[in-house]
């Protein structure tokens, strides 16, 4: 079974700084998807970014980018120019492509606080 590990339960950063959230995963599959979700205090889970394992190029979405290291099974999220609105829980998630499954396996989450 796949597992997703987020080793840092909590982080804080000053506004406008850059922060990196770490995530590792364990799988024997070669083709899969990885996601980062954000959950602000409103509780609404929002997709931040996704990465297809077959793509070598790291995904980017505005201030958010990933460092995907397939061999190391590492998928970190970098947030540049942090904003107060980035304060939230962040979850790393894995989706297998075997068997047509759409199930997401989540890490335990990490609480990010952006300070003014």
């Amino acid at each position, binding site marked *: 079974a796949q597992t997703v590990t987020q080793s840092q339960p909590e982080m804080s950063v000053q506004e406008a700084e850059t922060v990196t959230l770490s995530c590792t995963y364990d799988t024997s599959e070669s083709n899969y998807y990885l996601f980062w979700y954000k959950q602000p205090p409103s509780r*609404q889970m929002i997709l931040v970014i996704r990465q297809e394992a077959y793509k070598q190029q790291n995904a980017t979405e505005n201030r958010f980018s990933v460092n995907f290291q397939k061999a190391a099974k590492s998928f970190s999220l970098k947030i540049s120019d942090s904003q107060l609105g980035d304060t939230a829980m962040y979850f790393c998630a894995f989706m297998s492509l075997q068997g047509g499954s*759409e*199930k997401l396996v*989540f890490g*335990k989450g990490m609480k990010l606080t952006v300070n003014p």
Partner: protein
Amino acid sequence: DVKVTQSSRYLVKRTGEKVFLECVQDMDHENMFWYRQDPGLGLRLIYFSYDVKMKEKGDIPEGYSVSREKKERFSLILESASTNQTSMYLCASSLDGRIGPGYTFGSGTRLTVV
């Protein structure tokens, strides 16, 4: 935009009660999911469904059941609520997570069992 609506934001129920958590999506998505979220444990999959009247167990199905009589509605049922089922429950739907934006989540139901 796809919208996933969970009928209650907060719910308080008594031990032993039968509890229904309702979830409705408005974009004709095939896949629907129920997760439970607890601090320090992340999100854990309870049940999911790929089609009407179809259901599959997730990682923690004990004490729960589900119903999907219509494509847009996926209900989570706690047959006899217990205090260890006090948690945040999140519903999600997806068309095809491999090509789309992944899941769309509801806003969650915080259930307290007393």
